[in-house]
């Protein structure tokens, strides 16, 4: 069973082998390292760029304009902020040129907290990303979705931002979440595709015979069906919400966990169906709470589903602070934790209008 980072690597391999990917690049993306999280080890088209985020995104735009299929990595989303201008251009080129030029590129970047990353390795990017129209934005919560979303991102004719929840990158899929074609034994897979420590100059991966598997951009997944409260979440918070829901089930509270998977376009029909069923809604994400993507979802729910609601919708998000502190207690106090999610669902479920 692959980890998420192995799943991403296998998707990139399928991309360059069959789907026309020509350039996978960024800082430390090529050999010898193959990515700080190992996501680009052993790939044919991976190369190292200068330490220049604006240049990385600009290069990707130019490659896309020239008819190549680039996948650019920003090593941590914390360092993407100096490239917002370039991200805006990637997003507006098709519109500004009235359909003359589209920009088919993928930008991938690790996001969020959970690895004790302190102030500059814990940022979230979802609020920022959804403020840049013209992009499609996806964020997986498990290896198989990561694989399927990456393949969809690769074949999409638009710029697609692939946000990687960094705390989940080394987490294995659960039973039933296999990537079609991967060997069942994680040790066997590791032996095939993980670069050895030390000298790697002669090493080549032995890729499993992978099948193409696409997760449509814009389609949410019901991670847990329930009838009492709808939880709208994505990325790292999905397993936390599932854990909270599992505990609450013992108390007779049945939460429905919607893993959005795509932030834009997002799956409004799935959200609507769930809210109409449960009448209560909680949004959970790690980004700072002011001008948060969950706020948008709540605004739309209030505007379009007001009379369906039996409780005020709630947002559980990161504290509106300049950063996430390093010490364990500081990180936990800043970013939503399972206990807080559980309490929020519990309160919503018990709320009487």
């Amino acid at each position: 069973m692959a980890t998420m980072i192995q799943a991403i690597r296998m998707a990139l391999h399928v991309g360059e082998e069959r789907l026309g990917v020509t350039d996978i690049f960024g800082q430390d993306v090529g050999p010898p390292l193959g990515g700080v999280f190992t996501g680009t080890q052993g790939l044919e088209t991976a190369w190292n760029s200068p330490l220049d985020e604006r240049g990385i995104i600009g290069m990707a735009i130019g490659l896309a304009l020239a008819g190549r299929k680039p996948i650019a990595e920003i090593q941590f989303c914390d360092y993407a902020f100096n490239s917002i201008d370039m991200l805006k251009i990637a997003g507006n080129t098709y519109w500004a040129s009235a359909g003359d030029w589209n920009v088919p590129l993928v930008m991938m970047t690790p996001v969020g907290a959970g690895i004790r990353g302190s102030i500059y390795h814990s940022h979230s990017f979802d609020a920022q990303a959804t403020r840049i129209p013209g992009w499609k934005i996806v964020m997986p919560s498990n290896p198989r979705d990561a694989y399927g979303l990456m393949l969809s991102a690769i074949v999409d004719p638009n710029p697609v931002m692939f946000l990687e929840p960094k705390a989940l990158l080394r987490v294995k899929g659960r039973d039933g979440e296999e990537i079609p074609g991967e060997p069942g034994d994680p040790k066997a897979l590791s032996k095939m595709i993980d670069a050895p420590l030390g000298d790697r100059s002669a090493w080549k991966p032995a890729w499993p015979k992978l099948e193409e598997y696409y997760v449509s951009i814009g389609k949410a997944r019901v991670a847990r069906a329930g009838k009492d409260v709808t939880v709208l979440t994505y990325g790292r918070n999905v397993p936390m919400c599932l854990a909270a829901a599992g505990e609450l089930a013992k108390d007779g509270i049945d939460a429905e966990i919607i893993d959005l998977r795509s932030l834009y376009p997002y799956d409004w029909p799935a959200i609507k169906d769930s809210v109409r069923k449960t009448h209560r809604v909680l949004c959970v994400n790690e980004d700072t709470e002011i001008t948060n993507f969950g706020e948008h979802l709540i605004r739309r729910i209030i505007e379009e589903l007001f009379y369906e609601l039996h409780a005020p919708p709630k947002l559980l998000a990161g504290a509106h602070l300049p950063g996430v502190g390093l010490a364990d207690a500081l990180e936990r106090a800043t970013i939503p934790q399972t206990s807080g999610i559980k309490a929020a669902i519990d309160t919503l479920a018990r709320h009487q209008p």
Partner: protein
Amino acid sequence: MIIPVSSGGSGVPRAAANMDMKLGTFTEFSPDVALSVHALMLQARVFEERLIAMYKQGDGYFWVGGPGEEAFNIPLGLLVNKGQGLDHDFLHLHYRSAATLLAMGADPVDSLRQMKNTATDPYSRGRNFVGHASIRKWNVAPISSPIEVQFSIAIGTAEAQRKTKSKGITIVQGGDAGTAEGDFSTCLVWSSRKGSELPILILVANNKYGISTPYEGQHGEVCISDRGKAFKIRGATIDGNDPEVSWAAIGAAMHYVRTERKPFLLEAMVSRLHGHSSASGANFVKNEIDCIARFEHKLEERGLLTRAQMNEMRAHFTAELLEASKRVRKEPQPLPETIWDYVYADKNRREVN
């Protein structure tokens, strides 16, 4: 032979004489070439004057352009390997590049349409300012308002041309003030990496101003072309007010880039004859060299055209564009619902969900 650099009035810094000047052989234009270059220069000037008049008459919200750069931009447009795809030149221009596009064969009426933001504006369908062209069939990337971003994007088309060993080169152009942006450094760094040098012609049109701030207030370097030295990028600073000097220099620099597949940094000293934009009044500036007046003086001396003939040409172009602007005035404005067109290349209408 050394490219002649005029002293004093041309605005070429003295130190430019120490630059790499083995840039082709400077020769006087043949009569045929002189006459066609002159006609295009004059047409480009009259065209900018028409745009300014349209702005002043309320037929547009804003004007920005390049009157005063014709002696450089017309030869550039004539020397481009025009077409679509990697075997042709990619152009990443700026909003003073209309003369270059005119020389390539663009219809000036299309720019009048963009000025008037009509639905018929082929570059942006009424979305963008004049001077913001996009012509995919000629590899002209969309021109955008942020200064210097095209220098980070151009490396991508150049990299695609390097990787595919195509015949085309990438041409990127900006002004002097914009070289303070990090994107200019990005272009120098990424285009000069050993073993991965890019076939890119880097052009700086130095009009000695950034909006209202003079060159001296923004730069410490004597010549912008000096900045290539640390990267072993060949470069020169030339008198961009002389079309024969410009032709020889652009031709030689292009030849170098085409054959050596390495970057070249060419700085052209030019005039800014109507200020930065309509924001500063767009009135004619009397204390700068007028490249057309100077070239016309030469043509008279060479007995190629009389003053009367040139006056007649000017009157003819003026009348032609005046008539065109009257026609454009009657063309439809974009419909409000078109704002949703061309957001995504796979869905040209609003996401409905």
